[in-house]
């Protein structure tokens, strides 16, 4: 199968990107400055991320659609205001996660942002669950650009007046060169920022404008270190079909009322696990010293018994040390529990810790 390219591919090349194949797309892993500098620039200034490989699924409909989607997603969608977003997941009957996603209520229905590797499968699952009753469009004509970091709001507002009035997890339509952009105040770096859904033919022009105003292109490498420091899950690592939202410590993303009354796919298992407790749970892990524990590193307790496995691990440039997330048996998930990580045949001490590693700075109280 031929590798797919996003509308920003030429711009990536001009900026000396190193490319990797990710979910069938040729994506920039880093540019000439490297992951550490790109990471720090995002935290201190403003980074631009091409996330056009992600799925933008528009589903058109009204109250009936809202009701049908509530049978799929563990959210109170009836009370979701137009242009407000929620983090959620698409689950199987056993509450295993097919994908994690952001769903936004828009004036004509819903917009769901899906992971690149999952989007085609998600589309099939959702259309089947909705019995093909609604118009659905996994839009290939739009790009998705994220701009993240403390300077992002001013950089973007200078181009599109009014984005500074959006609050965290809300969005709106804006006009750029006579075309419609849907912009939400969200992201996946632990920083204040925006995700911009934009027609493909405007993506490069718009991104160049962001660069002119002081933002810089950032690769997937720094996106990974940023999200890991922010304690955020990555599908295929922390999340998968054999992991439930309760195990992933994502119960906060399930609407309270839905948690009590169920009625969505996987709800029996979720309610069960809430009552009996999950056997394994996602935790943060802080190695002592500088050692990096990568994905699949075995986690041991002080009696040298295996209690879990690392799902993501790297060096966190903003915390200046190694960081990891993984799953451990529930009885070892308490903060400050001492554990050992087996790396290259040797066991190294580490501690279970709270998440995030790096404190988030989302803007919740922006004026409406």
């Amino acid at each position, binding site marked *: 199968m031929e590798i797919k390219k996003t509308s920003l591919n030429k711009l990536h090349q001009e900026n000396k990107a190193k490319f990797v194949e990710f979910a069938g797309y040729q994506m920039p892993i880093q540019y000439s400055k490297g992951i550490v500098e790109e990471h720090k620039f995002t935290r201190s200034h403003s980074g631009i991320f091409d996330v056009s490989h992600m799925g933008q699924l528009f589903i058109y409909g009204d109250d009936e659609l809202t009701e049908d989607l509530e049978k799929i997603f563990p959210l109170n969608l009836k009370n979701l205001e137009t242009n407000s977003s929620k983090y959620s997941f698409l689950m199987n009957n056993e509450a295993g996660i097919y994908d994690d996603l952001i769903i936004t209520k828009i004036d004509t229905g819903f917009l769901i942002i899906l992971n690149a590797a999952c989007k085609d499968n998600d589309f099939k699952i959702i259309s089947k669950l909705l019995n093909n009753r609604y118009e659905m469009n996994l839009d290939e004509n739009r790009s998705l650009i994220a701009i993240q970091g403390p300077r992002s709001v001013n950089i973007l507002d200078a181009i599109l007046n009014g984005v500074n009035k959006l609050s965290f997890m809300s969005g709106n339509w804006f006009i750029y060169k006579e075309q419609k952009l849907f912009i939400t105040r969200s992201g996946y770096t632990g920083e204040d920022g925006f995700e911009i859904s934009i027609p493909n033919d405007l993506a490069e022009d718009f991104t160049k404008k962001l660069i002119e105003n002081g933002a810089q292109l950032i690769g997937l490498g720094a996106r990974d270190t940023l999200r890991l420091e922010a304690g955020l899950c990555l599908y295929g690592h922390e999340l998968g079909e054999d992991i439930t939202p309760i195990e992933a410590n994502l119960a906060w993303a399930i609407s309270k009322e839905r948690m009590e009354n169920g009625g969505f796919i996987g709800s029996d298992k979720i309610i069960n696990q809430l009552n009996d407790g999950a056997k394994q749970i996602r935790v943060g892990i802080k190695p002592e010293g*500088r050692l990096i524990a990568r994905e699949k590193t075995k986690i041991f307790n002080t009696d040298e018994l295996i209690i879990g496995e690392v799902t993501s691990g790297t060096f966190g440039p903003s915390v200046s040390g190694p960081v990891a997330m993984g799953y451990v048996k529930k009885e070892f998930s308490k903060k400050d529990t001492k554990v050992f990580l087996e790396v290259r045949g040797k066991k190294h001490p580490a501690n279970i810790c709270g998440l995030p590693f790096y404190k988030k700075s989302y803007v919740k109280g922006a004026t409406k």
Partner: protein
Amino acid sequence: MSEVKYSKEHEWIKIEGDIGTIGITQHATEMLGDIVFVELPDVGTSVEKDGNAGVVESTKAASDIFTPISGEVMENNQSIVDDPAKINTDPENDAWFFKLKIKDKKELDSLMNKDEYDKFAKESGS
């Protein structure tokens, strides 16, 4: 007089009498990206040509270091353990990895000189 030779695994070795100083090349650091962790062989251990002699880790992945020739480790560079970023800034001087007592100078014959290595690195790409 010292002489510098290079391996296909992108290590360099500076030879001064019986002592060889080993590190990784500029080209290697460019391929690896930002180095954030390094593990060096302990002083006193014997290492075998092309055998494992430590690890470097970038933000992306871990990579083994191989020793281009056999010998006994005489000294390792603690300053790069404490500040691995030095490897990116000065890989072919200050950020050497370890020094060893060369066991068999004949092993040096299989290594490349600077011109040969530069050509090799260029051809092997990035």
